[in-house]
């Protein structure tokens, strides 16, 4: 297989989840968070997963990104079965393939904006790291703020830095967890525009978890998560 195409010439899903289930043991017994969730996302698609608080959206995102393993079922990223990998191998796969945008930004407080963007490049020992980091900051309109620390930036600016960090190493998939959840109305639109523009420019596959229906509606596909089960929305 190559470039998202199977050997028989059919198009291969970039993300493929089959029969995913996740449960935890709580004080009152077993609690099912996800139940028999299946999902396929093709390269270049933008997919939104919506749902009420506690519906399991973030858990699903974690499983799709390989941050956690399902209790049952299987996830494949670019054809690689995640459950067959140890955490170490999954980390390498994430480094090559995946970018993240979090609701609460997750910038390292002791690093400047530029140093935060540098992180994925440093982890991969990429050459020209500084130049690329500055370009990424330029792309989110924060070139002049590279030397600033997170506490010196507004919420919207912090999320821009996080987006620059997510795209800087050219991942094929971007996972975004409530990317506008911590922002005001004005910033929210700006961040959403930026996210979708960069996604288009980098031809990245986007999986977005949100309860903001307006944001979800900008995706090509929307799925609703209800009681741990995925329900497809017709568009």
């Amino acid at each position, binding site marked *: 297989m190559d470039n998202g195409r199977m050997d028989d010439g059919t198009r291969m899903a970039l993300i493929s989840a089959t029969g995913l289930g996740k449960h935890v043991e709580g004080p009152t017994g077993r609690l099912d968070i996800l139940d028999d969730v299946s999902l396929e996302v093709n390269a270049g698609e933008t997919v939104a997963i919506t749902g009420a608080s506690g519906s399991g959206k973030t858990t699903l995102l974690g499983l799709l990104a390989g941050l956690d393993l399902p209790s049952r079922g299987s996830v494949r990223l670019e054809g690689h079965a995640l459950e067959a990998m140890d*955490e170490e191998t999954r980390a390498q796969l*994430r480094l090559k393939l995946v970018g*993240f945008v979090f609701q609460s930004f997750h910038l390292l407080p002791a690093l400047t904006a530029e140093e935060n963007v540098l*992180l994925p490049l440093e982890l*991969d*020992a990429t050459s020209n790291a500084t130049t690329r980091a500055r370009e990424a900051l330029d792309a989110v309109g924060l070139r002049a703020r590279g030397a600033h620390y997170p506490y010196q930036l507004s919420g919207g600016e912090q999320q821009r830095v996080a987006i620059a960090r997510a795209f800087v190493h050219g991942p094929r998939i971007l996972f975004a967890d409530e990317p506008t959840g911590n922002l005001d109305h004005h910033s929210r639109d700006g961040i959403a525009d930026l996210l979708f523009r960069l996604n288009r420019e980098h031809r990245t596959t986007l999986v977005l978890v949100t309860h903001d229906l307006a944001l979800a509606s900008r995706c090509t596909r929307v799925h609703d998560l209800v009681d741990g089960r995925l329900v497809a929305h017709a568009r």
Partner: protein
Amino acid sequence: MIVPRLALRTLRREWRLPELRTLVAALLLSVIALGAVATLAARVQRAVLMSAAELIGGDLGIDAASPLPRSFVEHAKALGLRTSRVAGFPSVAFANDHSQLLTVTAADAAWPLRGKLVVQTRDGESHITHGPPAGSVYLDHRALVALGLELGDRVQVGGTNLVIAGLIEQQPGASDLIALAPRAVMALADAESTGLLGTGSRARHQLLVAGAAGPVAAYRAWARVHLPTDAHLVTPDEVQQRLAVAFDRAGTFLRLSALLAALLAGIAVALSAQRYARRKTDEIALLRALGASSRFAFGNLAWTLAVPSVLAALAGVGIALGLASAAFAYANGLLPPAARQAPLPIGPAFAAAGIALAVLVGFALPPLARLKSVPPIAVFRRSAAQTTRGFDALYLVPVLVAVGLIALETGSWKLAGVLAACLAGAAAFTSILTLSLIWLIRRHAARLNPALRLGTSALTRRRGLSLLQSCAIALGLTALLLLAVVAPALLDNWRRELPRDTPNWFVINLQSAQRADVRNALQRLGATRFNDMPVAVGKLVSIDGVDVETTPFRGRDISRDASQQVRLSWSDSLPPANRVIAGHWFTAQPREAEVSLDIAWIHRFGLHLGDTLGFLIGNQRIDARLTSIREVDWSRFNVNFFVMLDPAHGETLPHTWIASFYLPPGHAQALATFSRDFPSLSLIDVDQLLDRARQIVAQVTAAARWVLAFSLIAGALVLAAALTMSAAERRHEAALLRTLGARRGQLRAAALCEFGLLGAIAGLTALLAAAGGGAWLARTVFRIREFSPPWPSLVIAAVVCAVVVAALGLAGTRKVLRTPPLLLLRR
């Protein structure tokens, strides 16, 4: 009541927080270290004094030229004390064709009250016994040889025939400086009936008492008031001034070591409190936002810390007392029997708890006090709580607490100041080194290996924390190296100062004409290290023209002190174990007489340089100007004098000589012959004193290992606290890096690099600070002249420490490496 209730509820939840546990563990450790050492020291001090008591034969003695009034015995009995009467005098013994001057102790059947009289009887067995029955006498080996007698023979003492019932092997008071060789012990009743103690005899009478410390002290106070004019008190501590000096050193060393362990724990407290304060910031902000007064919020915090602290301090007192008892039981064989029964003092352990709580408050206060200024707005924006202040006077509190406690323990502000300066120097050096390294890393990070770049940048990212951690670890290591490497070297040097061939005999009453003959005779016997000094005996009669016997001097009545006999000597050069601390040593041929005094005399009489002292030696009067003040190390077992004159004027005075020499054991018979050849000389044996001093050094060395163990634990606590401080941040960082795809190896290499650098900085600082501090301690506290830091051991220890820090740091991040990346999405 709501504050304590809320605090207890908080405590139930927060008890598992590592920083709170570290804080409590550090406090517990401080109490145990300080308490155990203080309890042991108090008990050992009692034991040492009891050893001294063994040397005089009782807890207290009254020495008089005539028998004491009956009231002295009656009052002692009324207080529940045991008593014994002894008389000491020289007497010539006759047997066959021989005669020999003996130092006779005439004792009643109760003597000795402390210590042992060991005699060998005719069956060859050694027995611990008391004064002999009437009609019999015990002689030492030299007396038997000198008189050509054996056990069971008869000897004539004071005109009466006595049976030699035993050979003296060990006798209390044998090392008393008035004891003359050879020795005999006879029954007091015999001495009284033969008229040896009658009018005109040269006998000194002693009443010895022994019993519990309280009644002895009461008796001492009573006796001081009722003492006849010709009598004086003989106390173990006075008699054993040298032992006391040795013990003071030992006690100071041990207490200082324990305090260093406690201050080390204080650093752990400070780090934990810093972390705890950071964690509590949100809670305080929330409480303030909900309308709680800052007093309420802070009160809650104070209660939360006070409850476990007080409990830990009490537990520490219990453990310290247990440990001290165990240590005492372990060392039982080394102690005199009376000391074994000494009650366990509990005061020092509670005092230690107080000191440890002072350390806790002093070190935890600065970070916690800052919480008082957390504004309610911080509940919305955390950065609002981080009000930065350039300098916070509160950070002087732990410094003042540390300096104050060192001064309190050692009784010396100078020592405290220098130790604090040494530690502050180490902290400053570490800061400079760490900041330079961080600067270098920032400048050249791009050229480093990508994995290492991640690690070194961890130091630069947390610059403030890196600085704090490296200082804490460096100070910890400094204290550890001081104790682990420098202290044994110091003790070893000290031990070497009492080498096997330290002079163990003194000869007094040596006439100028006899010096060469005596020296030759002793050399023939195999004596080494022969050294003699002139001695003139007189008394102080005036200071600056004031007759001190009749007139108060500078407002003080010193007539009693001045009436004592004074031994004066002189020498061209400053004698060994002497140090001039003010003025200058004698110039050759000064026009007017000059005198040099030991510092003790300066304090006793309130003298100043330039004062003129008048001495009367025989009929000769000499007025000498005070030109130098000396500090004499009395523990060296050299011949030393409080008063020294310039040789040009000293030589004009009537004088004899005192000599010291070393004679290996087993030469008693030869000495007996020597004693007979020079009957006018008095020989003094100080082997017992030397043995006791060596024993103290050995005991201190053993105790130092104990204290070192406490310090090691304290050092580990500092490291644990330092790791805890950054644990949350590390966990978040590791989770983020894992999410972004970092491999475990990369994170591990980064941690290794970070802690390796921290360890290297700390190791280097500790190496230099311990060497410097050790050299200073050796010179000023232990008065060891030729001390060179044990460089090879220090370097090895510093490298090992650095490696251990790196390894422990790496081990401490294991949990961080296992943090699941999903944690990030949940925050």
